[in-house]
């Protein structure tokens, strides 16, 4: 079974600074997807970024980027120029390659990020 570990229960960062959230996972699969989701206090889960394991290039979405280390099974999220609206719980999630009913997301326990003014 796949497991996802987020070792930082809480983090804080000053506005406009950069912060990195850690995520490691365990799997015997060779082809899979990794995701970062954001859950603000409103509780709406928002997809932040996606990485396909077969792609060597790290995904980026505006101020959000990942450092995907497949051999180390590590998938960290970097948030640049942090904004107050980035305050939220961040969940790392794993999914086997979609198809055949394998689209189950396995979530880590989350990291509570607070951006301070």
């Amino acid at each position: 079974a796949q497991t996802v570990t987020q070792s930082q229960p809480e983090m804080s960062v000053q506005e406009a600074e950069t912060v990195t959230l850690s995520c490691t996972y365990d799997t015997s699969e060779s082809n899979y997807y990794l995701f970062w989701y954001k859950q603000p206090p409103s509780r709406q889960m928002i997809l932040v970024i996606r990485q396909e394991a077969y792609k060597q290039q790290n995904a980026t979405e505006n101020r959000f980027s990942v450092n995907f280390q497949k051999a180390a099974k590590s998938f960290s999220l970097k948030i640049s120029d942090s904004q107050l609206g980035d305050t939220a719980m961040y969940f790392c999630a794993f999914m086997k390659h979609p198809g055949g009913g394998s689209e189950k997301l396995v979530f880590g326990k989350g990291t509570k990020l607070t951006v301070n003014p």
Partner: protein
Amino acid sequence: SAVISQKPSRDICQRGTSLTIQCQVDSQVTMMFWYRQQPGQSLTLIATANQGSEATYESGFVIDKFPISRPNLTFSTLTVSNMSPEDSSIYLCSVGELAGNPYEQYFGPGTRLTVT
């Protein structure tokens, strides 16, 4: 991305009763998912609901407790039956989009259930 709505957004229920949560999507999707998020915890998949077939439940979740309907490609319901305080959670539905795009899964706003 798909737009997903859930009803009710929150409810307070008495133990022993049942609550049905609705999930509506603005486009046709093959697979819908129901997750539970217990207070201060991460999300756990309850079941996968495909239109025209029985829902597939994860270990620890049973149909008698969490019956699911999926009458068409845009709608699903989850019922929490014979509720106890331990069922107090946020229940979220999600949909997966695969056709023509790298796979992404989107979530509804959730239903906050409190059982007294």
